[in-house]
């Protein structure tokens, strides 16, 4: 899982496998965002899940949010080599309009 001062997590899987990445956050928020950053690129938002949604799907992606435990997960089904990237969760803490990023999970999908 990712957050705070934890080192960047790393996962290596085979193409076709499913993967779940976890994130826990410290400050109360009503929105969790998941971003993907490919090598040499800026991060791009994949999915945004709100506190009134326990689960949200977008194609092969599925995000969950548990506000009671202040945690979120991002799952990718049927991974492709092109899913290789670093995945970040990010939250805008309530009463602020800034976005704070987790430490990230480096996912390598081997063809």
């Amino acid at each position, binding site marked *: 899982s990712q957050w705070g001062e934890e*080192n*960047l997590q790393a996962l290596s899987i085979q193409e076709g496998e499913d993967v779940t990445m976890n994130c826990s956050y410290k400050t109360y928020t009503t*929105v969790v*965002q998941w971003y993907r950053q490919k090598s*040499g*690129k*800026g*991060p*791009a*938002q994949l999915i*945004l899940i709100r506190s009134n949604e326990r689960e949200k799907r977008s194609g092969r992606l599925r995000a969950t949010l548990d506000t009671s435990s202040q945690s979120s997960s991002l799952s990718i089904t049927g991974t492709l080599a092109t899913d290789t990237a670093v995945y*970040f969760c*990010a939250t*805008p803490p309530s009463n602020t*309009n*800034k*976005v*704070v*990023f*987790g*430490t*990230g999970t480096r996912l390598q999908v081997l063809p």
Partner: protein
Amino acid sequence: GALVYQYPRRTICKSGTSMRMECQAVGFQATSVAWYRQSPQKTFELIALSTVNSAIKYEQNFTQEKFPISHPNLSFSSMTVLNAYLEDRGLYLCGATGDANTGQLYFGEGSKLTVL
């Protein structure tokens, strides 16, 4: 769609010199622009958040004197790294949003700063 163009992509500068980077928002109104620094093996450090018609808010360990920011309109922002030294190396990213409710950021490709 919403896009953010950031330039230059890479800069190599001598220690003690300065680097300016710019971001252009296309397809939406960038009411807020957040500047981040991403160092090797580290996550994103928020430098400052700039909101049009509001004061720029710098995070702890970052100052206006070191990282002056300009956000003159809803499509453009710039930041300068003054007197750059080795510890300033990294990928600088601007993230712009036009949606205050979600804070969804559209990022540029980043400006990589190398200090010799």
